[in-house]
């Protein structure tokens, strides 16, 4: 029988690797209605099915791959999917999001989501070919990098159009920040979900789908989608992304305003960053790439001079450029792209990898580690050769790489010698390449993100400057000016962070790309509501209030997941450096983050006294069962 809501397929594929079994479950209607898709599905399933305190690398952990109602439709930037599990890096809620083509293909094969549970005794890969599902041996693929894995799986099935999620050496070796790669370049990067696959002996998930996605109100959907394409094509706001990608324009801006983490966040000014700006890298441009149904095409391929032919590599995103560049004191663009490429091939998160190397460099600078401790590598700031070498050592857990593979928190814990002071993490996840001292709301965003330090869960851009006054006024009211646009003010920032966290929870459940609504904002929650209603036929989705209600449900559920693990307000903090060390130079000179006042406002807006949801807050969201479990465990 056809599923009653459009956009959804109406099926979940559950695979038990321990028992070598699989079965198809109907997508519960209340799951679609109350949690929308993607992130929302994952949050509800993991809260229901995981027991607290399980080992993230044990068979009890589950890996969820979930799409949303827009995935696989022609809606611009809707080719994404969510991956989630309990994180081996943080020990709490783990989620990552990915572009490419896998999400649409999963739906075309007939599934809204995959649930992978158990652990295979031997390396395997999952082969989903429409209705046919097989757990196949991966003995010959194990040990290969992610690109080889994708190629080998496609060769085995003699189909170059198969979509493959794969792990590399890092996932196999349980590097705590191993990631999952789709289609060579697209990455479900953070929280170590590649290690969850590795622990399950699951090398890859390959999918071929030949069906389609039906929307409910086709006429209205196509009208809205056409408007959305017009917006993306015509808006000069998106030109920077179209021409240069995510990194060069941001590098140019952040280096000038003093917001570019440098040398493990010792400062926010890196004079040589001009070498990664628009003018400098434009000459390397070869071509643009796009994810499914995306006219922005923000992904770029660069050709770097090297020998006769040159080296053709994926241009790094802003976070990766800064992680291996300024934050490691390096101005070597070629080395940045090499480290970035190695991370893709080995399957490692670039932000965590760069941050853990920056920590080692600061330990070296401070005399905490020696050249001998670092396998003979001189870990001076900017030693780009050492940065590249360490990528292989981490992935293979070789020498000093074995320590770094544990992530910066555990590495500092093991090393001791006062090195924890320089471990830049939140909730044990390495900091993203942003700093609340140069962009105040970022401090609150990083501190409250359920998956650990993360800019993506609630990135507020309106306080990156007064150029955003118009949109700040529309969203939050003129009375919030000028503070809400002031990069160095704490006032009203909790309001903007909470709002963005809610909107992005919807974005990640539909599922859409950050660049659809992030910055510059092509779409916001009213656009999402209209699209969701036309796609699914669920009229209530067309009401923005309903969207905010669903978002609050998802945000509270993630909070409940972490509280159940024992992490609440105690995890909502920032490294001491961000709270106490004033920026020494540049436009942000003298700035520190006064987190306490922003957190107070945030908890008040969320109705989380002391960081814990009130019972009533949960009940009002339809989460009475969640309230009861937290009460039973003494968490609220």
């Amino acid at each position, binding site marked *: 029988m056809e599923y009653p809501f459009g956009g959804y397929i109406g099926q979940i594929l559950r695979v038990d690797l321990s028992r070598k079994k699989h079965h198809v479950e109907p997508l519960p209607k209340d799951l679609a209605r109350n949690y929308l898709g993607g992130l929302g599905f994952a949050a509800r399933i993991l809260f229901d099915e995981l027991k607290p305190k399980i080992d993230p690398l044990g068979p009890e952990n589950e890996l969820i791959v979930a799409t949303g109602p827009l995935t696989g439709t022609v809606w611009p930037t809707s080719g994404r999917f969510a991956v989630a599990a309990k994180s081996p890096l943080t020990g709490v809620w783990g989620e990552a999001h990915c572009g490419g083509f896998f999400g649409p293909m999963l739906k075309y094969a007939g599934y809204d989501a995959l649930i992978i549970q158990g652990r295979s005794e031997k390396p395997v890969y999952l082969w989903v070919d429409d209705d046919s599902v097989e757990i196949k041996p991966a003995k010959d693929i194990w040990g290969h990098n992610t690109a080889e894995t994708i190629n080998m799986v496609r060769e085995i099935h003699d189909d170059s159009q198969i979509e493959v999620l794969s792990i590399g050496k890092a996932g196999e070796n349980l590097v705590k920040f191993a990631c999952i790669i789709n289609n060579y370049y697209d990455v479900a990067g953070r929280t170590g979900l590649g290690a969850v696959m590795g622990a399950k002996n699951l090398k890859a998930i390959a999918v071929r789908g030949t069906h389609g996605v039906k929307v409910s109100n086709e006429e209205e959907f196509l009208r809205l989608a056409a408007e959305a394409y017009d917006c993306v094509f015509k808006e*000069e*706001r*998106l*030109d*920077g992304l179209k*021409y*240069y990608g*995510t990194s060069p*324009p*941001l590098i*140019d*801006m952040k280096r*000038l*305003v*003093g917001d570019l983490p440098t040398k493990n966040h010792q400062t926010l000014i890196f004079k040589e960053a001009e070498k990664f*700006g*628009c*003018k400098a890298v434009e000459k390397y441009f070869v071509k643009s790439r796009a994810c499914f149904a995306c006219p922005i095409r923000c992904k770029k391929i660069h050709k770097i001079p090297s020998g006769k032919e040159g080296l053709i590599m994926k241009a790094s995103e*802003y*976070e990766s450029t800064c992680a291996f560049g300024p934050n490691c004191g390096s101005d070597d663009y070629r080395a940045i792209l090499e480290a970035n490429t190695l991370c893709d091939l080995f399957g490692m998160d670039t932000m965590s990898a760069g941050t853990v190397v920056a920590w080692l460099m600061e330990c070296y600078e401070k005399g905490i580690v020696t050249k001998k401790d670092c396998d003979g590598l001189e870990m001076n700031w900017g030693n780009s050769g050492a940065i590249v070498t360490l990528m292989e050592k981490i992935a293979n857990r070789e020498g000093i790489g074995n320590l770094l593979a544990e992530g910066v928190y555990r590495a500092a814990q093991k090393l001791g010698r006062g090195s924890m002071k320089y471990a830049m993490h939140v909730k044990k996840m390495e900091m*993203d*390449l*942003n700093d609340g001292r140069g*962009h105040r709301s*970022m401090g609150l965003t990083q501190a409250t993100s359920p998956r650990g330090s993360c*800019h993506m869960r609630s*990135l507020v*851009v309106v306080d*990156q*400057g*007064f*150029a*955003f*006054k*118009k*949109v700040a006024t529309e969203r939050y009211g003129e009375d919030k000016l*000028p503070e809400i*646009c*002031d*990069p160095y003010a704490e006032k009203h920032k909790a309001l903007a962070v909470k709002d963005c966290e809610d909107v992005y929870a919807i974005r990640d459940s539909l599922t859409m790309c950050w660049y659809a609504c*992030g*910055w*510059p904002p092509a779409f916001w929650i009213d656009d999402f509501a209209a699209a969701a209603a036309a796609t699914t036929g669920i009229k209530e989705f067309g009401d923005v209030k309903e969207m905010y209600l669903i978002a609050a449900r998802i945000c509270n559920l993630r909070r409940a997941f972490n509280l159940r693990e024992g992490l609440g307000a105690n995890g909502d903090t920032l490294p001491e450096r961000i709270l106490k060390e004033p920026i020494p130079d*540049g*436009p942000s000179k003298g700035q520190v983050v006064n987190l306490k006042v922003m957190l107070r406002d945030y908890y008040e807006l969320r109705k989380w006294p002391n960081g814990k949801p009130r019972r009533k807050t949960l009940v009002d969201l339809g989460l009475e069962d969640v309230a009861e479990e937290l009460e039973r465990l003494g968490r609220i």
Partner: protein
Amino acid sequence: MEVTIKIYGDLCKKAGTDTIRLPIDENDTIDALLIRLGKRHPVLLEAILDPTTGELKPYFNILLNGHQIQRMGGIHTKLKHKDELAIFPPVGGG
């Protein structure tokens, strides 16, 4: 006295250059400089200013020595010798 104007992102293509040096007089402000800039690079000025209000278009940004001009005196901020003005198309994020 002279100031340097750096043009970023795809605005360079419209301006045909990424760096412009212009002389200034004592007490000159940013708006006076922009008028002078418009005479030499009209396409650039069209790209960044709203034709009806004459104000900077939403999302476009002007920095003076790395500081947002709105945190100072806006377009009425006084300029001094060797100041560096940066003109940005829409950009933001992390």
